Every structure is written in structure tokens, then in C-alpha cells.
């Protein structure tokens, strides 16, 4: 179909506003006709079903099953709406996703049985909107039938006026207005042809309006869809960060099990060699080298992922940082429960970077690190009594950590007026 090519999809409205010849010979009038005419068919089937359900349901209320049948009325509207969304494809190639929850999600599998499905559906506004649409569509079925019928039958009769008149018939437009001579019949036929053209426009316009109504009431709004996609992107970002976290731990473990053990083994062996007394100064130097290498490796491994964080959590790990800091650091990071691994790790590295900055740039003599949970948010605060004026500049370590925190939807705020104090406040939501 030519109308659907090109990057900007031409809508039915644009087609109607364009070249009339091109419009009349395109598929649009026929699609519109099919759309308008099938509407009452579907609508009637639904209406009869719904009426039947209401009558039988009401009669059977004393038996109990009646309630269940009445509940099937909104459910039947869901089915009706699903058919309507399929039909929408005739008029509109844009996707028409269902507005219901949990219809196209990956969590289909863990959705429990029929009862909770029912509860969910009956609570959704989408269901009731669909029921409203179904009733409205049933009413509009009359228009759907009358408009094409009037226009096309009228046009057909008028176009065939010369033939009818030739057969001796006459067309009555009302009392006293009759067409019964060929002289009168030909202009009527021309008017009939024009009417057919108008009929195509009218039916297409009706179809366009009905499709817009259906889209407005039955299709998940685009904005909502976008919002959901954003959540999805964010979730996958956090998954990626967690994957990196796992990778860091793997590297840390590989180093621990591999290089560190081997160097330790080497140091032991050299120690044994020195016991014999036969080993010279060279062995002693080799052992010193191995020891230095191991110490460097230990620092490297701690930078990748500190074991104390894995083993004992944030407080002990930050205490360990404080012990290494040249600035005196008070730590109060006891949390009632351990945050999710990725969050805990992000928190630790933010504090590590902040303390490194305090030591390097602030000129502070003391710093204080606090961590607490405020509801479901982990709140960190690193405060120093230095000279202030700190900034989160692009490419700085702090910027990188702000990015890392942002992955978990957290925020980093820095207050550092000239003269100090500098306060870094980090908040990370802890959804587990």
C-alpha cells in the first residue's frame, strides 16, 4: 500500500486533505468502509453477549453463579477491546498496545492464577474504560450503519436514475418532487456521482474519527509506554553495574587464589631456604622483593574490592579506610541491615574517594563519615573541616562516583563554601 511508505506515516486525515484523485483511487476509502461496516458486526455480537450475560446473570443471582456471570460483562469488554485494537490496524499502522498491566511483560510466568488475574483486571481503570467504549460503540453502530447506507444507496440510486427513468420508473424526493424524465435524470446521475465522492470522504472521515476514539480509549498512551521503557533502561543499567561488580569480585578472587598465594608460597620457600644457612644474601633480597610485590598486590586487590567489605559490611570497611587515612576520621556507619551488594559497594567507593580527596586537597585535620538508612534510602555524609571550595569537575574521581551512584538512582550533593566546611551527601535508594 503506497500510503504507508515514507518515514512520516501518512494518516487517513492527511490522505483526505491531499489530492482528491489520489485519495479516491487509494486503498483508504475501501479500508475505511470495511472498518466502518465491520464495527456494527462486532459491536452487535458483543452487545448481544453482554445483554445475555446481564439477563441470565441477574436471574441466577439467587443461585450464586449469577454474580460470576455479571463479572463476565466487563471481561467481555476486554475481549471486545482486543478485537477493536486488531481492527484499528485497518486505519492506523501505529502499534496499538493493550493498556492492561502484565500483558506483555516478562513476569508473565510468576503471575499467579485466575483469581488474582480477575482481581487485577477488575481493579484496572483500563477495563472499565473498555466497557464504556463498548457501550459507546454499540450506540455508535447505528451511525456506522446509517452513514454509509444513506450515502451509498442514495448515490447508487441517483447514478442509476437515467436507467430507472428509461424503465418507466420514477424517483420521489418527497411530495411533488419527482424525477421521471431523461432530461431530469441526467443531472441527478451527475449529482449521484458527486454524492458517491462525498460518500467516500464522509465514510473515511467517520472511520478516522472512530479510529481516533478507539485509540484514545483502548490503547496504552505513548507517554506511559515511554515511561516504562525508561524504567527498563534504568534497570538494565543497574544490572550492568551489578555485572561489573561481580566481575570485580571475580578478579579479586582470582588474584587472591592465584598470584597472592603463589607469592606467599614463594616467600615461604625462600624463608625455608634461608633456614639452611647455605642461602646467601641474594635469597634474602629475593624474599624482600617477593614481600614488596605481595604488599603492592594486596593494595591493588583492596582497591578492586576489599574483602572486609564483603565479609563485614560498610562500617568495618570504612573503619579500615579511616585507619589508612592520614587525616583523623570518625566513622559511624553501622546500619541495621546490609544494603544490596551493588549499593553497598557504590557507597564504599564513594566514601573511599571522598576520603582520598579530603586527604589530598582539603587541608582538613578531621573528617567524619556517617551512614544511616532513612526509610529505604541509604544516606551517606562525609564532612571535613578543611578549607572548602571543592568542586565536582568533569573527569574527577568524584564525578565518576556520582555516575556510579546515579546507576542506582542515587544522588550526590556537594556543599563546599570557601572556608569550609565541605559536606558531601549521597543518597541511594535501596530497593532490593
Amino acid at each position: 500500500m503506497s500510503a504507508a511508505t515514507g518515514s512520516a506515516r501518512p494518516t487517513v486525515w492527511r490522505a483526505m486533505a491531499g489530492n482528491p484523485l489520489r485519495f479516491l483511487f487509494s486503498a483508504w476509502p475501501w479500508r475505511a468502509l470495511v472498518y466502518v461496516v465491520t464495527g456494527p458486526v462486532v459491536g452487535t455480537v458483543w452487545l448481544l453477549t453482554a445483554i445475555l450475560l446481564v439477563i441470565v446473570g441477574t436471574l441466577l443471582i439467587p443461585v450464586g453463579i449469577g454474580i460470576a456471570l455479571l463479572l463476565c460483562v466487563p471481561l467481555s469488554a476486554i475481549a471486545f477491546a482486543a478485537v477493536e485494537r486488531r481492527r484499528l490496524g485497518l486505519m492506523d499502522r501505529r502499534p496499538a498496545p493493550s493498556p492492561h498491566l502484565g500483558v506483555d511483560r516478562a513476569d508473565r510466568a510468576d503471575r499467579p492464577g485466575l483469581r488474582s488475574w480477575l482481581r487485577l483486571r477488575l481493579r484496572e481503570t483500563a477495563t472499565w474504560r473498555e466497557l464504556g467504549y463498548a457501550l459507546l460503540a454499540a450506540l455508535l453502530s447505528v451511525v456506522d450503519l446509517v452513514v454509509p447506507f444513506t450515502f451509498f444507496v442514495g448515490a447508487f440510486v441517483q447514478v442509476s436514475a437515467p436507467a430507472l427513468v428509461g424503465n418507466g420508473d420514477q424517483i420521489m424526493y418527497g411530495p411533488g418532487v419527482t424525477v421521471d424524465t431523461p432530461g431530469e435524470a441526467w443531472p441527478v446521475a451527475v449529482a449521484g456521482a458527486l454524492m458517491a465522492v462525498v460518500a467516500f470522504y464522509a465514510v473515511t472521515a467517520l472511520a478516522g474519527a472512530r479510529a481516533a476514539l478507539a485509540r484514545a480509549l483502548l490503547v496504552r498512551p505513548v507517554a506511559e509506554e515511554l515511561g516504562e521503557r525508561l524504567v527498563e533502561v534504568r534497570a538494565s543499567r543497574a544490572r550492568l553495574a551489578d555485572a561489573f561488580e561481580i566481575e570485580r569480585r571475580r578478579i579479586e578472587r582470582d588474584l587472591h587464589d592465584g598470584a597472592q598465594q603463589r607469592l606467599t608460597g614463594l616467600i615461604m620457600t625462600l624463608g625455608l631456604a634461608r633456614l639452611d644457612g647455605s642461602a646467601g644474601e641474594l635469597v634474602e633480597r629475593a624474599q624482600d622483593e617477593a614481600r614488596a610485590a605481595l604488599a603492592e598486590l594486596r593494595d591493588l586487590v583492596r582497591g578492586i574490592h576489599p574483602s572486609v567489605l564483603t565479609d563485614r559490611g560498610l562500617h568495618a570497611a570504612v573503619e579500615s579506610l579511616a585507619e589508612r587515612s592520614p587525616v583523623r576520621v570518625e566513622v559511624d556507619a553501622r546500619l541495621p541491615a546490609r544494603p544490596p551488594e551493588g549499593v553497598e559497594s557504590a557507597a564504599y567507593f564513594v566514601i573511599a574517594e571522598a576520603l582520598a580527596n579530603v586527604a589530598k586537597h582539603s587541608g582538613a585535620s578531621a573528617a567524619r563519615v556517617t551512614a544511616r538508612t532513612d526509610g529505604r534510602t541509604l544516606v551517606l555524609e562525609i564532612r571535613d573541616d578543611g578549607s572548602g571550595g571543592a568542586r565536582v569537575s568533569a573527569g574527577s574521581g568524584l564525578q565518576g562516583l556520582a555516575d556510579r551512584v546515579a546507576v542506582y538512582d542515587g544522588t550526590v550533593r556537594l556543599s563546599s563554601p570557601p572556608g569550609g566546611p565541605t559536606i558531601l551527601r549521597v543518597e541511594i535508594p535501596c530497593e532490593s
Partner: protein
Amino acid sequence: MRVVIAEDSVLLREGLGQILARFDHEVVAAVEDAPGLAAAVAEHRPDIVVTDVRMPPGFRDEGLRAALALRAARPELPILVLSQYVEQSYASDLLQTGGGVGYLLKDRVGEVAEFVDALERVAAGGTVIDPEVVRRLLARRREDSPLERLTAREREVIALMAEGRSNGAIARALVVSEAAVIKHVGSIFTKLDLYQTADDHRRVLAVITQLRDAPR
């Protein structure tokens, strides 16, 4: 002495075994995880346990937890904990369980004679804390802290005390007389407002606690 070793690396397990054998200690069992350690201790009733911190199945601090559990069940069982990294909080946990504990970086084993000495001290009920732990505690800068009032020599003495050395050992390490060490120790205890005690373990505990919690 009869020793049980818990260490998941074959290389280090055998290295330790060799070193202990050199000093006529008998390795009655060498296991590779925490449950194995508990079973071996129950079976062999060793004079001392040497254990790694990080072991299967979780590769976290299973060894340390096992050590603390063993101490809780048998407070007199000497345990020397070896680790690839040392943390003050681990040392404090071990110290809380009483005397006859040690906590050392693994590569200290390379100083074979010193390592075996530390092992024997722990077996005899002494306390051994890795110099790295002590160094970091002392390096924490404090103003208005009683530690700031210590002389350089007193700081050397308190570091060795925190590692679990006896007065005699401190005297040998600093090449001074034991009488001089006793004088420094007395001065340190006065300055830090600590009780003098004859019990070596309590002395380590007091000093480490003081270093950790001194007002900052």
C-alpha cells in the same frame, strides 16, 4: 606440638607443613575448609590450630568464623589465624575470646623462625597481633589524645606490646635492658590511665582497645 592446619591452597598447606616439620611439630591433620577444621579438631584434639580466613565454600571469612566458634566451645584451644590481609576489626573479635590467639599476615610465615616463635607463644597462651594492625592503629592521627603524650621510644614500646611481646622480647627487639622496658611500660600505663596487669593477654587487649578507641 600437635597441629591442625586449615588452608585451602595446597601450596601453602604443604609449605606450612614443611616448616612445622622442620621444627619438630606434628601436623596431625591438614584440611581445606571450615567444616573440615571443626571435624579435625574434634577428632585430633590438637595443641594448636593454624587457620586461613578465606576458605571454601563461600570464600569469605569462614576460617575466622570457625576460629571464633572453636574458641567459644573451647576457650583454652590456641588458635593462630593467618590471612592475606589484616583488619583491626578481625583482630578485636579474636582478642575478645581471651589469651592463646594470634592473628598474622600470611607472608610472616616467610620469617620462619619468628613465625614458629609466634606459634609457640600462642600455644603457650600468649597473644600475637600482626605489626601491620598495630602500625595502622598507631598511624591514626589524633589530637588531644593521650597517645600524643607518648615519647618516640614509648611509641615503639607500645607497638611491640600491642603485638603481644613480653617485656623481655621488647627489650631484645629494642636492644635495651628489661628494666628500661619495665620503666617505659609503667610510664605508658600512667599516661594512658590504664591498669597494669601481669596477664600478657589483658595487656594486649587493653593496649589495642586504647589504640582503637582513644578519644580523637
